[in-house]
């Protein structure tokens, strides 16, 4: 039996559609149920629908053999696993955004960066040798520069319409984001007979 961790929501639907194309009996993912573990009718696959940020955890511990989740989540969670494929859907960019012209300030302070990608932002600015102050937020990140809570935001941008509506702009596109297929390091070897042909089929389709 192969266990698959999927990120709840649209990503799970798209992932299940791709798995179906590759011959996996993934219909159960589309069913309207409150069950947490969904078993395919042929008994070959078992799916967990979890919060996106929990997908890498389930895969790292080997509770799920494979998982499908966004690259942004993978960078933020930074787990020890194999990143097998770029599935090329759910594309967006992880950007630094703010007012096109930053207001000149006389009092110097650290750049204040509002984000929910705390770990990724810390790593990015540390690699650049810049001291910043991270302001952790969990939603409506764009509000931070508008209200003066932060100088810039570090967040995913899909269409940019929210930024525009609030007078903000993308200052730097840092990472290309898309859905990725990840695998547990041991399962890939010990369940290679099922996983390798499946990954090959997925590779052909993306």
């Amino acid at each position, binding site marked *: 039996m192969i266990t698959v961790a999927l990120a709840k929501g649209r990503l799970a639907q798209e992932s299940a559609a791709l798995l179906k194309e590759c011959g996996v009996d993934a219909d159960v993912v589309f069913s309207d149920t409150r069950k947490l573990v969904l078993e395919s009718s042929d008994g070959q696959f078992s799916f967990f629908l979890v919060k996106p940020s929990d997908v890498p*955890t389930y895969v*790292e*511990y*080997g*509770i799920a053999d494979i998982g499908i989740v966004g690259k942004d989540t993978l960078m933020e*969670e*930074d*787990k*020890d*696993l*194999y*990143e*097998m494929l*770029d599935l090329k859907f759910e594309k967006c960019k992880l950007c630094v955004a703010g007012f096109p012209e930053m207001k000149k300030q006389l009092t110097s302070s650290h750049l204040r960066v509002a984000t929910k990608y705390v770990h990724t932002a810390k790593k990015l600015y540390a690699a650049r040798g810049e001291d910043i102050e991270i302001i952790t937020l969990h939603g409506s990140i764009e509000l931070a520069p508008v209200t003066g809570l932060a100088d810039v935001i570090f967040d995913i941008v899909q269409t940019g319409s929210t930024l525009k509506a609030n007078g903000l702009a993308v200052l730097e596109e840092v990472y290309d984001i898309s859905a990725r297929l990840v*695998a*547990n*390091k*041991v*399962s*890939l*070897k*010990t*369940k*290679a007979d099922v996983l*390798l042909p499946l990954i090959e089929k997925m590779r052909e389709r993306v």
Partner: protein
Amino acid sequence: MKIKNYYRLPSGVQDLLPDECYNLNLIEQKLAKKFSLSGCTQVQSAGLELYDTYAEIKNKIPQKKMFKLTDSDGSLLVLRPDMTLAVARMAATRLDDVPSKLCYFSSVWQYPQTGGLSIREIYQAGVEFLGVSNPFSDAQGIAFAIECLEEIGVKDFIVDIGHVGFFKGILEDCALNEECVEQVRLLINAKDSVGAQALLLQQGAFESAVNALAALPTLFGGVEVLSRAQKYTTNQTALSALSHLKQVYELLKSFGLEKYISFDLGTVKDLSYYSGVVFTGLTKSLGSPILSGGRYDNLSDDFGKHVPAVGFAMGLKRILITLERQGSLLPVPPVDVAIVSEPDAEALAYQTYQTLTAQGKRVNLFTGDHARMQSLKEQGITLLLASKEGVKEI
């Protein structure tokens, strides 16, 4: 009210209670016998060492990973972070006649690198085969790893083999700086072809080398991987790594062990530490490796003597979890005999206890506690009552 929690443990360390400890002891006994039968002699190294031992050498352990303490004179100490380095240090500096095989049962302490799997005190059993560097000694090391896992009853396992020379060779052709090499290694180790390719192109590496590196994460599976890999490179270091692996495989096959073997050329463990073959023991029952090892011919050079070596360590906690999931752990068995002593019959009871233990029986001794008897009887323990009239079974 203040919550009393001074008796809790810090995170990442554990007590072993009787049932778990009993099973750990069984594993240790089996391994100790196996090690001894194959000519290994056991060593123990100091748990506290000088920080410089691990910081001044070429194969440094990252400062962030070590538990550090300050000595009374102000010098910096560490809790032993790695057994292979400790054995290499002993072999190079303390042993004149390097015996060919050493083994150990010891703990190492490291801060975990990533978020999950947060055990910080790791109890290992391991061996180091010293002094010889050739395909036969590599095959012998891998064969012994298989023997050990079989001996302790692990089911459904494979040993996944790679060779750092293949990756090193391809990198030679890329002419990258050291920092970039480390970044590429991390990406390949995570099988992230996309990331590795992007980085290499950005660094202006040759297309042939980029293609070879991008293929690395796919170069795993059966022995056919070796011939598949050959097509990607003309580099001598990389090709000789492949032919070395082929020789090791032929030897393992001649030992009848090929069913346990798989290959992964994309396993690129720490490059300065390992110099040749690397291998990992994997089982379906656990999402992380239960055994890890490889060849490190240059590790002892920093300690003043060249001692080539191949070795491996098993994480005994992970093996316990594996055995539990495979249904192979046992409860602690009760004692064979319980002696209950009446008042004034203690001397007789003690004498009986001595006689029985000398016969190899496991014996518990009580005084007067009749209430306990029924439950002992239910566990199938032979009950003896010692009184002024003598000893009789009840």
